């Protein structure tokens, strides 16, 4: 067995046997599903009905509001136009109802545009106010139309509702909302890479620091080259990480499946449907749904997956060599903070650039530049790939990524080689630079 595979095996076994790794592996999906279920439960709970008093002196609007009342609606409107306004105001403070809508008596309906008042102790939600405004506005519009002796039905019929359908130059039909799906797919993969780098990069760093504080490092590097140890450590840790992600995926999917059985919701509509029914359903839904499916299958799935693997390997190795070098340079984890910042920054930056500029303009200058810079390309380029990226751009980006990857590994290995034998003091940036020349 070669030495590197020995090291990989040890690192993998050490990680996987670690108690906190086992606990995290099996607890996280439970926790995740638990939280999701809790949020679902909370949002399914019926909100407390809020009573709104209406004091309508004009007598024009009461019916419009009261007709909105139903068992399911969040607000219940009460017609209290007959009760004295002052008494109503006082009873708000006693909280027998949430708020009071005051509509004054007027001869000119247009005056109402600015004279309606809503009085409450807590500020009302924006959607509630918009709803009230639109009810009043619709009624006023209707009254105005009637006064002008216009036929409201004819006007309604005359209004048109435009729905632009999108198509590509190649002639294929396209669907709206596809960009959101594309960014979700690219973003999902990009986010996965970032999470993986942060979690397992840190694990690499901790493992280097452990060897330093244990003082086993000198025994080991009298038998193997520091470079072999570093690469073995990175690969071993990433294998443990991939195993963990895999277990998470399996547990998560089976929990979701179990939950959907339990709550009686079909995971996929095709699950129990007979072929004839499906055919029928397809005919009925022919149009948007089918086009979405078609578009999804038209996405460059192969290049997304290949891109994911390539950028995952490049990005993870690039960053974890940084983490290994930092681990070698410091004596304990608290000292690592100042060196970690420059690593976290490009990661965060690439996620933000990905979500903001790629979504707006997948082939704009910002998106293109950041998908070339090696530190951000693994995430930004992955987000762009679903939108279709010219091959030459991917070629440049991957070449740059791997060129940087090799030079960073070389540079990290140098710091690593010197750092692992330095005990007792926190190095400065200047010293790190000096180590490169040893």
């Amino acid at each position, binding site marked *: 067995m070669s030495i590197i595979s020995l090291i990989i095996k040890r690192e993998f076994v050490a990680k996987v046997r670690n108690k906190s790794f086992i606990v995290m592996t099996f607890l996280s999906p439970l926790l995740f599903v638990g939280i999701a279920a809790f949020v679902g439960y909370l949002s399914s709970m019926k909100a407390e009905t809020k009573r709104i008093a209406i004091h309508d002196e004009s007598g024009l609007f009461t019916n419009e509001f009261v007709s909105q009342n139903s068992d399911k609606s969040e607000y219940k409107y009460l017609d209290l136009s007959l009760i004295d306004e002052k008494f109503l105001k006082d009873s708000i403070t006693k909280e027998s109802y949430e708020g009071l809508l005051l509509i004054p008596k007027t001869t000119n309906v247009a005056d109402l545009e600015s004279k309606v008042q809503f009085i409450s102790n807590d500020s009302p939600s924006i959607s509630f106010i918009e709803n009230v405004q639109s009810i009043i506005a619709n009624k006023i519009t209707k009254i105005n139309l009637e006064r002008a002796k216009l036929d409201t039905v004819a006007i309604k019929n005359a209004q048109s509702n435009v729905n632009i359908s999108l198509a590509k130059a190649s002639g294929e039909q396209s669907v709206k909302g596809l960009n959101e799906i594309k960014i979700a797919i690219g973003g999902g993969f990009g986010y996965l890479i970032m999470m993986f780098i942060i979690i397992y990069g840190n694990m690499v760093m901790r493992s280097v620091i452990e060897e330093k504080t*244990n003082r086993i490092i*000198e025994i*080991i590097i009298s*038998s193997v080259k520091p470079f072999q140890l570093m690469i073995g450590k990175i690969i071993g840790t990433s294998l443990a990480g991939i195993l963990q992600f895999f277990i998470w995926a399996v547990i998560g999917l089976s929990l979701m499946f179990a939950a959907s059985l339990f709550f009686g919701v079909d995971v996929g509509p095709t699950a129990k449907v007979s072929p004839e029914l499906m055919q029928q359903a397809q005919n009925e839904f022919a149009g948007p749904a089918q086009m979405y499916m078609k578009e999804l299958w038209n996405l460059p799935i192969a290049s997304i997956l290949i891109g994911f693997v390539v950028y995952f390997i490049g990005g993870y190795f690039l960053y974890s060599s940084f983490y290994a070098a930092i681990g070698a340079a410091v004596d304990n984890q608290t000292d690592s903070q100042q060196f970690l910042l420059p690593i976290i920054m490009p990661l965060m930056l690439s996620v933000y650039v990905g979500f903001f500029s790629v979504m707006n303009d997948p082939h704009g200058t910002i998106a293109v530049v950041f998908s070339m810079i090696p530190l951000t390309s693994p995430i930004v380029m992955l987000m762009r790939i679903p939108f279709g990226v010219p091959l030459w751009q991917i070629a440049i980006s991957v070449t740059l990524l791997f060129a940087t990857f090799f030079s960073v590994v070389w540079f990290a290995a140098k710091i690593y080689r010197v750092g692992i034998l330095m005990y007792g003091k926190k190095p400065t940036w200047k010293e790190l630079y000096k180590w490169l020349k040893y």
Partner: protein
Amino acid sequence: MSTLLEVNKVVKQYGDYVALNEVSLTVPKGSIYGLLGPNGAGKTSLIRIINQITLPDSGDIILDGEKLQPKHVQYIGYLPEERGLYNSMKVGEQCLYLAQMKGLSKAEAKKQLNYWFDRLEIQGWWNKKVQELSKGMAQKIQFVVCVLHKPKLLIFDEPFSGFDPVNANIIKDEILALRDEGATIIFSTHRMESVEELCDHIALIHKSNKLIEGKLDDVKRQFKTNSFEVGIVSDNVEGLMYDITQKFTVGPANFKSLSNELKLEIQLGNAMPNELLNVLTQCGQVTHFVEKIPSVNDIFIQTVSEK
């Protein structure tokens, strides 16, 4: 006696600091070679270069007739001063791992481990985790890991630190046994009494330079001052003192004895011991007559404080 390890004009610099300045050593096969020097003299730098942990800036190293190269790690066993083990790993697994890194097959490593665990009577530790062991116990494991692959050259940096006297003795006997089986041992320590006891060759490094090297006896011969400790019972002390001070430099001496004699330390200069004896026997009864041989400790302190 042929040479196992030859260090030729090795230079190592860290930035502006010169850690080793053209240091050359010759370590004979089958010897126990004491590498001495005060803290920060460059011993660890040299040891790390021999272990190929760092590379020299210039100079070369010949191991058993070949220029030092990566495959040689199998022939070297190294017990560093700063040493430890993976805390959460089981002892047996850990030893197997470290032995395999030195190029042993798994089966061979297991065989050797069983032999050493039996020999040091630590069979019961195989499934223990290192964090359950005491410091001395962990040191024993490290010693086993260091010698397991039957290296030609063993390098021990402060091997006895952390051991109680009983265990230190066990380790000392093992080191001597390894030497008798043909291994060559480089031994770096600050404990001069163990140098005195074990080493047949020494080298002294001070401020990045090698100052002394050679057989321990030769070095001592080089450092002896031709002075003798003398005990004498005499009726005529004044006459005696007059006679001796005429010919030699005399000072008081301090050694343990049972009779209440006159104790002197006499510097002979170029004279022969018999000349002194002749004078002494004429004046009284000689109870004690020993040549003063410098200890390694004396040589160390003298050399280091001179420069």
